[in-house]
């Protein structure tokens, strides 16, 4: 299953609902294009809802890092929401869990923006 995204606005925060696989190729490109598009339109408070992301490889991890740093460099903030066990485990072993702001409740994630 390839990557699919849909975005919605919640109290000034853009929640991007992702599903499928974030892997080398299409999945990574879709995530990259989505975040860049949001930033170019001034949407700098971003939550990536990964509840339906069942697989991610090292390229996908790199794309999450890129989304995080690109958003930060443009004065924005990016948080991760609803990690599946697989994605959670990957972020733990790569020590990225401490880098990302990870939430498991959407309302709390939205509220957490400054």
């Amino acid at each position: 299953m390839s990557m699919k995204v849909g975005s919605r606005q919640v109290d000034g925060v853009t929640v991007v609902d992702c599903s499928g696989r974030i892997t080398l190729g299409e999945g990574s490109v879709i995530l990259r294009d989505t975040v860049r598009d949001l930033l170019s339109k001034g949407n700098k408070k971003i939550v990536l809802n990964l509840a339906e992301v069942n697989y991610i490889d090292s390229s996908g991890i790199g794309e999450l890092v890129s989304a995080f740093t690109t958003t930060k460099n443009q004065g924005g903030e990016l948080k991760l929401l609803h990690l599946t066990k697989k994605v959670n485990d990957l972020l733990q072993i790569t020590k990225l869990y401490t880098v990302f702001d990870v939430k498991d409740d959407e309302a709390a994630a939205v509220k957490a923006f400054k």
Partner: protein
Amino acid sequence: MTEQRVSYTLDSSLETVDNAEEKATRIATELGFTDDEVMQISMAVREAAVNAVLHGNGYAPDKKVILAFEHKGSDLVITIRDQGKGMDLSKIPNPLAPENLLKTSGRGIFLMRSFMDVVEIRPSQTGTELKLIKHVHESRAGGKEASQ
């Protein structure tokens, strides 16, 4: 368990990466690995295939990736060989180092090492061979044999 070996010659393409992962998933499942172990094996193979296709062969259409699965004694032995210039082992970063944490690449070998019992990297002037080994525990010895 009967010893068995299957080998594939694959193009240097993104399809090969998905193909290698699918084969790894099927064979590991047939050998009776747990769901978590199957995921680990398939991800390690995917990362090795990415290395071979992207970093080794550079998507060159005239270069191939040789992928082999061998059920050897109590081990699943997977080898992936490319036809590139050979990986420079001194340039493999530690992705957990603070200065590398926010890098967008360089985690493939680390993930392979995290998920497999043995990872051997053999670079040469005619390509790099990665050998990945996962031990098959006795409790899983009744799993179905891998077949092509």
